[in-house]
């Protein structure tokens, strides 16, 4: 019998194994999202605006805290009309009294440590006149971080051919 013949059952098993790995990864990711109460529990820093605390390629662990955000917290927020979230530190917090369901619970002002001025230029980019962000736009608060681990993501974004090469290599291992 030809020792290199791959029969149908083995192929099916391989396919199922790959699907199992992919779905486990997805389950872990979504489970982490539920546990941290935020839609992106792990993000990679893309700019140097928070140096020296966070540099390009650092991995940040986010969570959505039950208690209100405070001055000094580092948060990741995403503005309407901008697809890239921003990680900066909260400078100012103002809490209004009107607490009906639609009202914003807090008004926040942020600034990157390495930036000269606050983020109002970014807020006003798509929404002119916007002076504050609110907890609604905040994806999560940074609880901890791991240096350089996320650099792979940045490299893969800058060189999309690398993604194809890596996937090809993975497929080769799965055979």
């Amino acid at each position, binding site marked *: 019998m030809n020792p290199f013949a791959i029969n149908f059952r083995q192929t099916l098993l391989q396919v199922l194994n790959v699907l199992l790995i992919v779905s486990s990864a997805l389950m872990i990711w979504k489970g982490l999202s539920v546990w941290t109460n935020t839609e992106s529990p792990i993000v990679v820093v893309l700019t140097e605006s928070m140096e*020296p*605390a966070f540099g390009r390629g650092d991995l940040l*662990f986010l*969570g959505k805290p039950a208690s209100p955000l*405070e*001055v*000094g*917290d*580092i948060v990741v927020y995403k503005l309407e009309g901008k697809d890239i979230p921003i990680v900066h*530190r909260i*400078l*100012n*917090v*103002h*809490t*209004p*009294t*009107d607490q009906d369901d639609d009202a914003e619970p807090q*008004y926040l002002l942020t600034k990157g*440590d390495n930036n*000269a*001025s*606050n983020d*109002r*230029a970014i807020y*006003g980019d798509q929404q002119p*006149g916007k*002076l*504050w962000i609110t907890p609604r736009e905040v994806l999560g608060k*940074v*609880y*901890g*971080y*791991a*240096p350089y681990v996320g650099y792979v993501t940045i490299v893969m974004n800058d060189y999309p051919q690398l993604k194809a090469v890596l996937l090809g290599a993975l497929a080769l291992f799965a055979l």
Partner: protein
Amino acid sequence: MHNLWSRVNIRLRFCDLLTPTHVPVVGPAGTKDPYGNLLAPLALSLNVSSATLVRRSRAAQYKYQSYFHAPAVFAALQFDATADLRSLFQWNTKQVYAMVTVAYQAPGFPTNKITVWDTIITNIDDARLMVANAENKYAITDVQYRDAARFNGLAVTARLEWCVHTYVGATRCAAMPDELAAKFTLPANVGERVSYRGDRGGVGANKV
């Protein structure tokens, strides 16, 4: 189950690897952080020597980086601050972010807190913070910025706070204890300057 690695592996599975911690206030003796070290900055003092309510002007807007709106009044503070933050520099400390914040209550807004000055300290040699006659770097203006009388006679509390950022792991923040915070009242009218330098030097002076 017969070699060291599988035993270690099983132990590690029960450890909680991600522990978010936030320490809001540090007492005079410091506080134990999870690594077992005491975070106890010494020689903490914050001493506000004067406060001025500055009327709106182009110059004030540019000085305090209010490029997108024109607040009717800015508060300008002068203060001295000291803190010996050397004890925060442990093996895992990447930087310490120290800031002076001003907190107040105003009609319609029960809590307001503004960062007025900050600095980043990256190594232990620069960790003895001593600033004299510093001005606030950032604008002290309210959410309701069109109201020129908003700050008249307002009671505010200025505090020195700090956050420790690590090479890997959680970020922890703390603040000076309440008895060392500088509590004072802003001038009664826009355009006035109040000096708190009595013979004791200012609000919060000589408290150690």
